C-alpha cells in the first residue's frame, strides 16, 4: 500500500525550517534560480546525492571563519570551494532580501563580512545578482 523509502533527503526537507542549517537558503536559491538538483550539483562540481548532506551542514560562520568553514563543507561533499562560497553567499543574500522585502542591496549583504584575507571569497558578486537585478532590488 505504501511505497515509501527512507532517505536523508527527507531529513534535508525537514531541515529547511531550521535557521542554523543551509537547507533553507539553498532551497530558496534553487527555487528562485529555477535550478534542479542536477543543475546545482553541476554548478558546485559535486554529485547530486551530496546535496542532502550539504543541506544538513551548518551555515558558515562570518569572517574570519567563513573561508575555513566553506573549505570544510566543500571537502565533505567533494565540491568546488569557490563555487560553493558564491552559491552560499547568493543563497543567504536572497534569503535576507526576501525577509527584508527588498530594502537592502544584495552586493552589500554579500560584502557584509568582507575581509582582505578572504577577498577572493568575499568580493565576487553572487552569480544571480546582475546589475539589472540590483536595480530592481532598490525599487
Amino acid at each position, binding site marked *: 500500500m505504501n511505497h515509501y523509502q*527512507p532517505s536523508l533527503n527527507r531529513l534535508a526537507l*525537514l531541515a529547511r525550517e*531550521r535557521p*542554523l542549517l543551509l537547507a533553507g537558503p539553498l532551497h530558496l536559491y534553487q527555487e528562485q534560480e529555477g535550478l534542479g538538483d542536477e543543475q546545482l550539483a553541476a554548478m558546485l562540481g559535486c554529485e547530486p546525492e551530496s546535496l542532502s548532506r550539504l543541506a544538513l551542514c*551548518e551555515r558558515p560562520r562570518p569572517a574570519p571563519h567563513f573561508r575555513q*568553514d566553506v573549505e570544510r563543507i566543500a571537502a565533505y561533499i567533494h565540491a568546488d570551494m569557490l563555487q560553493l562560497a558564491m552559491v552560499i553567499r547568493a543563497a543567504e543574500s536572497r534569503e535576507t*532580501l526576501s525577509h527584508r522585502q527588498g530594502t537592502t542591496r544584495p552586493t552589500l549583504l554579500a560584502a557584509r563580512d568582507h575581509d582582505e584575507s578572504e577577498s577572493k571569497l568575499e568580493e565576487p558578486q553572487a552569480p544571480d545578482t546582475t546589475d539589472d537585478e540590483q536595480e530592481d532590488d532598490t525599487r
Partner: protein
Amino acid sequence: MQATLQEYQFHQRLCARDDPIAFAELAEWLYSGLLQDVRTRAGYRADPMLVEEAVGQALLDYHEQPDRYDPARLSLQKYLVMSAYRDLQNASAKEQRVQAHQVSLFDPAFQFDELIEDIEGLKSIDEQLAVDELWAVIDETFPDPVDRGIVELIVNHEHASEPYIRLLQPGDLPRDEQVRLAKLAQYRVARRLRRHLAQWLARAHTRAHTGGDAL
C-alpha cells in the same frame, strides 16, 4: 547507559558550534539506526512517514539545543529514540482522535478550501509559473505515488471517501474500516501539505510584493 565515546565526541562538536559538518556527519551516522529503533519500538503498524518525520524532528531539535542532552546520563541514540517516539505517540494520538471523530472539522488541517484559495490567488501573479512551482514543491514533498494521488484529490476539492479508498487499495477490509483508513491518510497528507505549502506561499507572496523574479 551513558554516551559512547563517538557520541560524546559528536556532542562536543555540536555544542562548540565551530564545525559546519558535524551535524550532517551525525545524521549520516545515526539516521538509519534511529529509524529502525523507533520503528521497532512503535510496532509494524506505525506509519513509516510519521516515524521518519519524528526521527527527523528529534535530530533537528537536538542540533538546535544540544545542551538539553546530558551525555553522562544517557546514550545519544537512546535519547533521540525516546524523543522521536514521544513525538510519534503525540502524532498517533491525534490521528486516533480523528479516527474517533473527536477532532473538530475546524482543525486547520481540514481547512483545505482556504489553502486552495491562497494557491489560486497566486495565479494572478503568473499563472503557469505559480502552478508549475507549486507542483514541483508537492512532488518533492510527496515522493510516494499514493500520497501524491491523495494530494491531487485534496487540491481538486474531493470530499468523498471513495476516490481515496480506490487509491489506498485497502483490500478486503470492512467498509467502515476502509473509510477510516481513507480519513487517516487524508489527514496525514493534509497536515504535511499544509505545513510545506504555508512556507512556499509565504515566500511566493514575499517575492510577489518585492518584485522577485521567480513568479
